[in-house]
């Protein structure tokens, strides 16, 4: 399993791997919003948590179809399915690799992008924490969507449609944590919900994704 994680990370950082794509997209979004809304800090401040979370969600969506599609094309997925690693483990490792290459850079970059949107300083900590807790669920749900659509040509659209509704609870509670952090209100209740969603997703979704992959490999 470690070998698979190492291979996925190596592939992501080599030419054409797409590492940094999510952060670049996140940066573009956060840089464009002030142009669209206007640079007035009073206008930006209330929408900053929402924009940052929507940006994180869309950036993570961008590279989802690569989780399994590339391995399916070159036959690696068939070979992994016959390997001694359980398919659930393959899903978990690949989702983790996706999180390291997309979710983690977003968490690191978010405070800087928060500045662009006049996010109050006291909310930065809560933004980082909520992204850290919430983004693993995005990668894992995405792995499920990628597993369902793996055999399809141009499955990207269907993948987005399948996955976006599943992302909404994470988005709502993640934004709420950051918003309450900005207003110095109590962020713990939405934080617990966010953590609960992530824990549930990490525990259950690998089995669903592996089942979907088995059907698609037939």
């Amino acid at each position: 399993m470690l070998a698979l994680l190492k291979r996925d990370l190596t592939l992501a950082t080599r030419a054409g791997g797409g590492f940094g794509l999510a952060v670049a997209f996140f940066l573009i979004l956060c840089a464009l919003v002030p142009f669209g809304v206007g640079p007035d800090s009073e206008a930006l401040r209330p929408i900053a948590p929402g924009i940052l979370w929507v940006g994180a969600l869309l950036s993570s969506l961008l590279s989802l179809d690569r989780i399994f599609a590339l391995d399916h094309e070159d036959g690696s997925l068939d070979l992994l399915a016959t390997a001694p690693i359980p398919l659930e483990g393959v899903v978990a490792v690949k989702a983790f690799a996706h999180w390291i290459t997309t979710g983690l850079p977003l968490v690191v970059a978010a405070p800087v992008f928060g500045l662009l949107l006049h996010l109050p300083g006291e909310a930065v900590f809560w933004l980082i924490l909520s992204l850290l807790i919430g983004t693993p669920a995005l990668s894992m749900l995405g792995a499920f969507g990628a597993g369902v659509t793996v055999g399809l040509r141009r499955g990207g659209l269907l993948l987005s449609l399948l996955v976006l509704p599943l992302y909404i609870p994470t988005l709502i509670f993640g934004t709420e944590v950051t918003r309450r952090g900005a207003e110095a209100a109590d962020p713990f209740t939405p934080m617990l919900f966010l953590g609960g969603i992530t824990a549930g997703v990490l525990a259950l979704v690998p089995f669903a994704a592996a089942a979907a992959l088995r059907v698609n490999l037939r």
Partner: protein
Amino acid sequence: MSLLAVHDLAVARGGLRAVEGVSFTLQEGKALILRGPNGIGKTTLLRCVAGLQPPVAGRIELAADAVAYAAHADGLKSALTVAENLRFWAQVFGGGDEARALEWMELTALADRPALALSAGQKRRLGLARLLVSGRPLWVLDEPTVSLDAASVGRFADMIRMHLSGGGAALMATHIDLGLDEAQVLDLTPYRARPGRVERPAGFNEAFA
């Protein structure tokens, strides 16, 4: 001891039965070559044996984690070097001598080249070298000699002989003569599913059967 026993197997491709009533056993040290016209279900049968899809009817008896499967796609990552590709599969399948596998397929000189720069035949040789590092006793090979030159085909036949003499077995579908005179041949043509018994594709529910 038999590594693989297939009883009255029927397989379906795209919801339609391809072959049915196929039975054979494969002992240690034996090779079985499947023949038959295009579309008769050789690949589908091999995928069933490899556990990638369920049979429609019949039984497949084999030990868990016994199969090394090699199909048309070699599972290579073009951004990784030859040695890295092979090392990954060696680690996933739990070991095996990578240097010896490279030596067998005459890839040692290419070990540090990215897989992107390999020719089709060299890629195939790398895909076959993976069998040696898998450490699995039963090789299930789907058209293993595609894009290999004559010398490499001979080398590959030697590799299979070596595997068989070590107590392994091989089940393969191929159209060309490998020079493996000791291998048994099973022609699938008589087992073609009769049109009258073809079941209609079950549509949506088929995916969850």
